[in-house]
C-alpha cells in the first residue's frame, strides 16, 4: 500500500506538489488573506453615532476619522517609538551578532545563542510585568541610582519632557527600554545569519588589498550585513508599531496605535474605525519596505 502510494506520487510530481502545498495555501489564502480581506471590507463601513449600530454601506467615513489631530498624534507617537526602538536594537544587536558570527569559538557560540533565545521561551507578558517591577520607583534601577548617589540624575532624566514621567515604570523612556529588550532577539538573529553568510575570504581579500580592519568593516562587512539589519528592522519596527501591551503596562494616558485599535474594537464597539486604523501600520510598513528596497537592502539577498 505504502509502496503503491510512493510509486503513484513519484510518477506524478504535480499531484505530489499539490498535496504538499494544499495545507499552506489553504492557510495563507483562506485564513490569513481572508481575514485581512474581511478587515479591509470592515474598514469601509461606519458606526452610526446616534444608534451605535454599524452601517454596512461603503463609506470613507472611518478613514476620514483617522485624520483628526488626536489620531495623527497617536500615529506620530507610535512611529517615532518604533523608529527609535529599531535604531537602538540595531546598534545593540550588531556587535553581539558580529561576535556570534565571527569571533566566538565553538564552545561559547551555543551559550550566546541560548542567552539570546532564552527570553523568548517565557511569556512576553510575564517579562513585561517583570520589567514594570524593575523600573518601578522602589525597583532595582532606582535603587542602583540611589546607591550610587545618582538619584538626582534619574530625577533629572524623568523631568525631561516627552521621554520622562513620574517614574521609569510610567514613562516613554521606560517603554523604550522594555521595547528594546523584548524585540532585541528579532534583530540579533537576522544580522547574525547575514554575517554568517559573508565568506571569511572576502575579509581576508580586503585586508590583502591594503584595507585596515576598520575599512574592511565599513566597505565589506557592513554593506553585506545590511540586508540582515533591514530584515531585523522589519521585525522590530512592525512589532513595536502593533504592540498594545507595553504601552498599556508602562505608558501614561497617551495612546499608541495598538491601544487605540484595542479600545475601538472593544469598549466602543467601533470595528470599522479599528479596522481603518490597522491599515495605518500596514501602510507605514509598505512605505518602509519600498524605501529599504530603494536603498538596495534586498540586492544581496
Amino acid at each position, binding site marked *: 500500500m505504502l509502496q503503491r502510494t510512493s510509486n503513484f506520487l513519484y510518477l506524478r510530481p504535480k499531484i505530489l506538489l499539490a498535496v504538499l502545498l494544499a495545507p499552506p495555501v489553504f492557510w495563507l489564502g483562506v485564513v490569513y488573506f481572508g481575514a485581512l480581506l474581511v478587515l479591509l471590507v470592515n474598514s469601509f463601513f461606519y458606526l452610526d453615532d446616534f444608534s451605535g449600530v454599524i452601517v454596512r454601506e461603503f463609506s470613507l467615513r472611518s478613514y476620514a476619522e483617522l485624520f483628526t489631530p488626536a489620531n495623527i498624534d497617536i500615529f506620530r507617537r507610535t512611529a517615532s517609538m518604533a523608529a527609535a526602538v529599531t535604531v537602538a536594537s540595531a546598534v545593540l544587536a550588531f556587535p553581539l551578532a558580529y561576535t556570534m558570527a565571527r569571533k566566538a569559538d565553538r564552545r561559547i557560540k551555543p551559550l550566546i545563542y541560548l542567552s539570546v533565545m532564552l527570553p523568548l521561551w517565557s511569556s512576553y507578558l510575564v517579562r513585561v510585568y517583570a520589567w514594570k517591577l524593575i523600573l518601578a520607583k522602589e525597583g532595582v534601577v532606582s535603587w542602583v541610582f540611589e546607591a550610587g548617589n545618582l538619584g538626582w540624575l534619574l530625577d533629572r532624566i524623568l523631568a525631561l519632557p516627552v521621554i520622562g514621567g513620574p517614574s521609569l515604570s510610567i514613562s516613554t523612556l521606560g517603554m523604550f527600554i522594555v521595547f528594546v529588550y523584548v524585540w532585541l532577539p528579532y534583530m540579533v538573529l537576522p544580522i547574525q545569519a547575514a554575517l554568517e553568510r559573508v565568506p571569511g575570504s572576502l575579509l581576508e*581579500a*580586503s*585586508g*590583502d*588589498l591594503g*584595507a585596515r580592519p576598520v575599512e574592511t568593516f565599513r566597505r565589506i562587512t557592513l554593506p553585506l550585513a545590511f540586508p540582515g539589519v533591514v530584515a531585523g528592522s522589519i521585525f522590530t519596527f512592525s512589532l513595536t508599531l502593533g504592540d498594545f501591551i507595553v504601552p498599556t503596562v508602562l505608558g501614561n494616558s497617551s495612546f499608541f496605535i495598538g491601544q487605540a485599535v484595542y479600545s475601538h474594537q472593544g469598549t466602543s464597539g467601533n470595528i470599522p474605525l479599528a479596522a481603518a486604523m490597522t491599515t495605518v501600520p500596514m501602510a507605514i510598513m509598505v512605505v518602509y519596505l519600498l524605501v529599504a528596497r530603494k536603498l538596495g537592502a534586498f540586492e544581496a539577498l
Partner: protein
Amino acid sequence: MDPLPQPSIRFVEVSRHFGEVRAVDGISLDILDGEFFTLLGPSGSGKTTCLRMVAGFDRPTAGRIVLHGADVSNLPPYERDVNTVFQDYALFPHMSVAENIAYGLRIKKVPASERQQRVSETLELVRLPGLGDRKPSQLSGGQRQRVALARALINRPRVLLLDEPLGALDLKLRQAMQIELKNIQRQVGITFVYVTHDQEEALSMSDRLAVFNHGKVEQVGAPAEIYEAPATAFVAGFVGVSNLIDGPAAQEITGSAETFSIRPEKIRIVPAETPVEGDVFTATGTAIEVVYLGMYTRYVIALDQGVELTVAIQNLEATSSDVGAVKGRRVRLVWEHAHVHRIRRS
C-alpha cells in the same frame, strides 16, 4: 660564484603548528625575484599554510618570513607588498567588476582619474575589456578568475600569491589559463608563488617548484629536475607515474639492492628473445594488462623477479587491435642506465 638574483621571499626555519598538528614543520626556502615558483603537494601538506603566512593571514609559530630583506613574520596583511588570488576568488558581491578591481587603489586613495585608467588597462591585460559594469554574479567561472587576477595585479605588488586559482575551472579552460597566467607573469615580471596539487600544472608553468609532504619540503628544483631525478620516493610517486623497485628484485636487475625509480615512458618493450647490449638494464616478464589510451598505451608487465612495472608506449603506428594482441605474451623490457634514479626512502 655567480651573482644570484635577489631572493624575493625567504622562509627561515618556518613552522606553523595548530595545537598538535604540525601543518608546516621547519621549512627553509628561497624564492627568487621574478620567478614563477610553485608549491606542489597533496592536500594537508602545508603548502597553503605557507602561502597564507606570506600573505599575512597566518603567522608562523617559529621561524621567520623575510620579504625583500625585511622580516614580515608579524606584519598584518594590509602592510605587506603582496597580493593574493584566492581559490574561491573572493570577489566582493556588492561591487561591480570595476569597483572590485579598483578596490586596492581606492584604499590607497589613488585619484579617480588614474584609478579609472588603470582599471581599463588591467581589464585589457586579463582580456576582459568592457565588462567593468557587470556584477561578479553575472560572470562565468573563468571570467571571475580573471577579475580576481586583475584585482590583485592592479596594485603592482612585488609578489603575487595564487592559491589553486584554476581549481574550479574545467580542463580546457584550465589549460588555456595556465598558458595565459604564464604569459601575464612574463609580461609584468613579478614573482608568482603558485599553490597547486596538480603536478601537471606545476610542471608546465613553474620556473622552479617545491614538493611538499607532511609539512616539509621534499625537493626543490626546476620541473625537469624534479621529474627526471626525484630525490625521494614520495616525489617519484607524486610527480608523474613512477615505478619504484627495491630489495631482491632491484638486486637481480641492477646488481644493487638500493631502491631505484624508472619512469614508464623510458622503458622499451621488445620480443622476449631479443638480445640486448649497451648501457641498459633489462628484465623479462608477461604482459598482464594492456590499456589503449589513444595517445599511448599503458602496459602492466609482471616481471619474473616478482614485481610489476608500468610501461607507457606512444602509439606511433600501433592500432588498438595491435596493442591488444600483446596481452599475455612474454616480453623483454629494456631501459637505459641514465634513466634510473637511486632514491632515498622517505
